[in-house]
């Protein structure tokens, strides 16, 4: 089952929202809201100044590609991430602070791999 779910509980948002060590303003992201995406990995761009995780969400046949921004590969690698952490075709649940204007983009909070059950980032 693939769906997009909004978790609007403010307390949960406060617990899981984390600012990126970004090189830019984060004004485009809504850090009061958490969206959980269920989809498959199209690509992880392991690049500076930020990594990007491209996730394809299939909502009853309508596919949407989300662009999810993470920290720098430098800082993430020091926290256990690798360039192969997300691979093409991985089935994942990903939580993000979405873009305020409803566009298919967000700031990474955490993810859970469906096959292994492993999590990365903040996933409570």
């Amino acid at each position, binding site marked *: 089952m693939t769906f997009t779910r909004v978790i609007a509980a403010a307390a949960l948002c406060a617990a899981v929202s984390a600012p990126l060590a970004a090189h830019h303003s984060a*004004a485009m992201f809504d850090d009061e809201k958490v969206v959980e995406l269920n989809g498959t990995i199209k690509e992880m761009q392991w690049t500076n*100044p*930020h990594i990007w995780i491209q996730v394809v969400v299939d909502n009853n046949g309508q596919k949407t590609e989300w662009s999810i921004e993470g920290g*720098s590969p430098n800082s993430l690698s020091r926290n256990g991430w690798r360039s192969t952490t997300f691979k093409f075709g991985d089935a994942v649940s990903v939580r993000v602070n979405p873009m305020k204007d409803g566009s298919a983009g967000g700031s990474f909070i955490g993810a859970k791999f469906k096959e292994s059950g492993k999590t990365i980032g903040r996933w409570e």
Partner: protein
Amino acid sequence: MRTALFAAAACVIAIGVAAGQANKPAPTALPDWSGVWQMIGPTVFDRASVQPQNGRAGDPGVREFPPLTDEYEAIYRKNIERIKAGTFPDPISVCGVPHGFPRIMNVPDVYEFAVTPAATYVLAENGPGIARIYTDGRKHPPAEELWGTYTGASVGQWEGDTLVFETRGLKESRDNDVIIDRTGLVLSDAARVTTRLRKVNETTLEAVMVVEDAKALKAPWKVTKQYRKLPAGTWAWDYGCAENNRNPISGSGKTLTIGPNGKPLDKNVD
């Protein structure tokens, strides 16, 4: 013969004195600041005065309280309003300019501090950024030879195990092209910063900065930042900001997000 020897000795002494003036002897034992360090806390420059407490730089309404003059308080308030409107871009978003000083002492990711007799180099992974602090006995260039740069000119000396240096020649913020942090703080080209940098224990470096600015500040502004040593063997990496920068700035100052088709995802691009 005696005259010749005397003349030669005098020349050696004279050369030595001249060299001494240009290259002040460094302390016999420089401190060991090796390793990789990370700033403690978030990137609000003056955490002692930030409101609300624990507010994050860039969040709407978050501000510090340096002793700003009326002119620079008005500039700060204007910038705070732009942050609320989402139209205050970080100048480093364009991946082509340094953070500048003192912001370089207030950045995420990691640091290295390279101490040599003639200079100490602050190497910030983020940016990347470099601050050069000369300790070879030189003076600051005379005012007519200085021009405003992001990181300015830093000259210092060792007082025991403390590196004391003054930074001058800082660039004036023009349309917020250099900032102190993402709360919207800026200084003028009259800013001078005196920094005392030392290791307070094996795992903590501390920078105590006193900012003076005849245009922007009514009184000296003291800010302390600390850096925690990361485990031995930690790597600092290349940070190629322009490698895949998917966050260009719009005409109004809005930070955009580029989607998979190379065009902004944002619904309103102005």
